[in-house]
């Protein structure tokens, strides 16, 4: 392990739980940051993703901005990883695919309980929602998948550790789960 690798992370239609699981690596993070330099990430102040060795994406794709960010990550990252159930199959947010988008918006902004001045937000600043939530592999090529909701810190650490050392990536039975 010579020069540090550049890592970017992003949360699309995620809950930030996968990022919390990254932080769950705890004090081993101190060793890890010696080998990693963070680019754009919710943990840094960098606004635009630059050339990176590794991109970690949590969350599925639910709106137009997610698509833009995901494509930028794909352009900049040599290895792009789907982290967590949402990035892998849409996860819990994809349960909205049972309903039409209009039904979802109307329930939330027009007909829901306790709504004052009902209207569906339509400012162009706001990214439009897609008709359905999608896994990220339906938008760009993904090199690796880390399942779990979230993947355990141990799983993420094993992945990073083995990737950094160039060893084949292998997980113990308890490190792979979808829930």
């Amino acid at each position, binding site marked *: 392990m010579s020069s540090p690798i550049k890592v970017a992370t992003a949360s699309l239609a995620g809950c930030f739980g996968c990022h919390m699981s990254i932080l769950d690596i705890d004090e081993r993070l101190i060793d890890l940051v010696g080998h990693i330099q963070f680019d754009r990430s919710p943990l840094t102040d960098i606004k635009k993703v630059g050339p990176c060795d590794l991109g970690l994406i949590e969350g599925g794709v639910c709106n137009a901005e997610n698509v833009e960010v995901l494509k930028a990550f794909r352009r900049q990252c040599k290895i792009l990883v789907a982290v967590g159930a949402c990035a892998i199959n849409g*996860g819990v947010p*994809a*349960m909205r695919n049972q309903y039409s988008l209009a039904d979802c918006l109307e329930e939330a902004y027009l007909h829901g309980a306790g709504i004052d001045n009902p209207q569906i937000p339509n400012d162009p600043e706001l990214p439009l929602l897609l008709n359905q939530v999608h896994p990220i592999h339906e938008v760009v090529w993904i090199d690796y998948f880390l*399942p779990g*909701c979230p993947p355990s810190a141990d799983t993420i650490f094993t992945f990073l550790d083995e990737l950094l050392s160039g060893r084949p990536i292998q997980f113990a*039975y*308890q490190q792979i789960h*979808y829930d």
Partner: protein
Amino acid sequence: MNNQFKLDGITVPFSAGETIMDAALAAGIYIPHLCHNPEFKPHGSCRLCTVNANGRTVAACTTPASEGMEVENATHELTTQRRLLLKLLFVEGNHVCPACEKSGACQLQAVAYHCGMLAPEFVHFYPKRAVDASHPEMIIDFNRCILCELCVRASRDSDNKNVFSISGRGIQAHLAINSTSGKLADSSFTSSDKAARVCPVGAILPKHKGYNIPIGQRLYDQAPISQVGDVAKHQELADE
């Protein structure tokens, strides 16, 4: 002794009429499967138990064992094929494990862990079949059903009730309830039926019993299905 064949090089005895699956189960050798349950007639729909027998690709659950047969099961090629079949099952339904009360004790999930599936990777279908919550004790989520027909077989062969059937063709094939309204509540189904505890996935579930086992103690939390065995066997025990 005459009646024996080789399974991944191991000598396995069998008696006349036994399938490769029967003999393997008796010998304690795990061949991945979803639709097979030794209590019922083989079905052959999931294709997970596909093995190479004398160079031919066959379903272990429907193929009779024969003298001197050479069977390959735990090969890299077959595991890769099984992973592909599992991915197809995952994208056909809505298998949101984080929000499923069967998670940790689901045979589809456990076999996917066993075969090393990290992600389904195909385009998801996101079917929109409505849940049937009409029955007072049981609930059916049709979007988790893998069409193994174990409930169909159990309700027909064990209870003579014929509550379930598979209806529709191709990707439209789905589990149907044989009642005039099509609702489970209007059938003769009860939670003590055999069919209520053979579902290997989270499609047919008891109401008000979800999430009662701590994480870490669920059926497949610590050891793989090749060691733990099928879901149905354990569901039977849990009810006794």
